[in-house]
């Protein structure tokens, strides 16, 4: 027999080699995690009250919606696509929800309705992308204009949400102790992430997503349901955006057509920082979680710093991002 796994050497060598290969695939994520911890440590060292557990929990509280949106985005990017419409869909969801609730509809109707709306929008974009072979970029950009356009048409002003269920969700806190709590949104977002991670790792659909990212043509020739999966991925992203929008409206207890501007970029950034390749086919949802935490942590550091003028805020965000990315790059590269 020809053994091609083992480099010149003995069986033990082979075992080691295999272990190495295993870990190697997780290096980006591990590196990100490590750097994240370091960054947190730096924060603790520099700012009074940064070590407070609630500071960490707040990062989740403040970014639950982003986490959900980014989770959907992860699926899209893993197939090598991109979804620019997410921010607009979030805005549309909040506006529609707020308007309907304002008009006295019951939450039990509104909630499924807005989720459905987002899903359908995603489905539409996915269909256009697959059947008419339109570049995801334009298709979803059109979706972005459309969603914001509709939102703006519905109402230019921000609409308060006073519905009982919504306010309850907004103010409900799961407390672990005095002043240590998370919001229900956090729970929802984490559930979404767990389900997403499971789907990616353990279901045929999930693996097909990776396959398409690796090579859509090959996947097609291997007899995989490329079209169906593509459409499904954008539909999923649409749903996640809508759900993100709902969480957002919990968080803001209002709806506004200009909400979540540029959230698409935050989501994409989170996904990519988390080690997912924009060309698709490689990366983990857990990485995305880290990506979101990185952005959140940067924002927190900024707020703790206080006294930063608008421009210094931007510059510092850029610098922190830069430092993080370069370190991450250095670590992962060394392991290659």
């Amino acid at each position, binding site marked *: 027999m020809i053994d091609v796994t083992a480099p010149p050497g003995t069986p033990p060598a082979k075992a080691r080699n295999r272990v190495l290969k295993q870990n190697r695939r997780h290096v980006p994520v591990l590196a990100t995690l490590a750097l994240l911890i370091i960054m947190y440590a730096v924060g603790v060292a520099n700012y009074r009250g940064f070590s407070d557990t609630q500071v960490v929990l707040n990062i989740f509280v403040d970014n639950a919606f982003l986490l959900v949106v980014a989770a959907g985005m992860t699926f899209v990017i893993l197939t090598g696509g991109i979804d620019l419409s997410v921010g607009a869909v979030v805005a549309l969801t909040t506006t529609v929800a707020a308007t309907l609730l304002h008009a006295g509809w019951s939450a039990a109707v509104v909630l499924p309705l807005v989720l459905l709306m987002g899903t359908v929008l995603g489905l539409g974009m996915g269909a256009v992308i697959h059947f008419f072979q339109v570049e995801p970029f334009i298709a979803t950009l059109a979706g972005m204009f459309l969603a914001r356009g509709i939102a703006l048409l519905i109402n230019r002003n921000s609409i308060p949400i006073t519905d009982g269920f919504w306010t309850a969700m907004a103010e409900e806190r799961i407390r672990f102790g005095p002043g240590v709590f998370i919001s229900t949104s956090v729970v929802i977002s984490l559930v979404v992430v767990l389900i997403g991670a499971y789907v990616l790792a353990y279901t045929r659909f999930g693996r097909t997503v990776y396959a398409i990212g690796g090579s859509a043509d090959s996947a097609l020739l291997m007899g995989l349901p490329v079209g169906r999966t593509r459409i499904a991925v954008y539909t999923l992203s649409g749903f996640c955006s809508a759900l993100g929008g709902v969480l957002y409206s919990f968080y803001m207890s209002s709806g506004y057509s200009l909400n979540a501007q540029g959230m698409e970029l935050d989501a994409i950034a989170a996904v990519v920082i988390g080690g997912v*390749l924009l060309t698709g086919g490689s990366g983990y949802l857990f990485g995305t979680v880290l990506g979101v935490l990185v952005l959140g942590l940067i924002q927190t550091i900024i707020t703790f710093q206080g006294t930063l003028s608008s421009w210094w805020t931007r510059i510092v965000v850029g610098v922190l991002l830069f430092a993080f990315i370069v370190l991450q790059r250095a670590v992962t590269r060394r392991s290659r």
Partner: protein
Amino acid sequence: MNFVRHRLFWPAAILVALLASNIFFSSGFFSITVHDGHLYGSIIDILRRSAPLILVGIGMTLVIATGGIDLSVGSVMAISGALACLLIGDLDNQNSVIGVLLACAAGIVLSLVLGIWNGTLVASIGIQPIIATLILMVAGRGIAQLITDGQILNVTSAPYKVIGAGYTIALPVSVLIAAGMVAIAVVLTRRTALGLLIEAVGGSPTASRLAGIQARRLTIMVYVFSAICAGIAGLIYSSNVSSADSNAAGNLIELDAILAVVIGGTRLTGGRFSLAGTVLGAVLIETLNVTTVSIGIPVETTLLFKAIVVIVLCLVQSAAFRAKVLRRPSRVGASA
């Protein structure tokens, strides 16, 4: 019949349709009069407005052709404009041509440096382009605001105003500058082998590496070119209103630029690119903007209108759509 097959036929058709639609609302739309020594009319306006987008667009085209993307163009515009205005403001005689030229040179040189920065992050450190340029996109705006101290810098400099608002030989200077840069880009890419090498790198990085192409140097070059284009666009933008507004300058222009590139038939995955297509795309987008105003689309529905145009555009542009819907339904071969 043959020109119908041409890649740019459909965008061109849409452009014509948009222009035509104006005639119903403003009769004098196509009339070009001579008005104190220069051409004056809506068409001229459209061209003038397109100039910055065309500039940014052609830079973006080359970046995208190598398989990259440049989100920082807007910030670079803001920075170069801000620096130029700052320097001109410090001149004891704001009307000295030399001083203005030097100030502009400074703006462009700074952009060049920023381009090197982007290029290095992407090519040498190997950061994914979208993140690498996101860093400058965020921090860059801060830097611009730092330069202008968050205020709008006014200059009262006749020579500077010429760049964005002036005319020579009856034509807007900005348009001439844009045309010049397009010419340079065309010559650079098509009269030398640059175009071929860029397309090779974008088409298949590994293959071109094994063919002895030095992707790194090329990549840095295109980011520098993109930044320079953005820098010049920034000068035009700020000169147009004789003031540097570091917030508004080039805000969200990266989206329009990418859209223009894609409309022009360059694929975001890199490889084959078309500068002519991008120019057409840019003009199309600005025509769209002018049209929304001149036919008096209410503000609330402007975005919807854009969405619809973009959707129509990307549908008719897709061969698959035409094959499936416009003609009698027949299966098109899956992309293999």
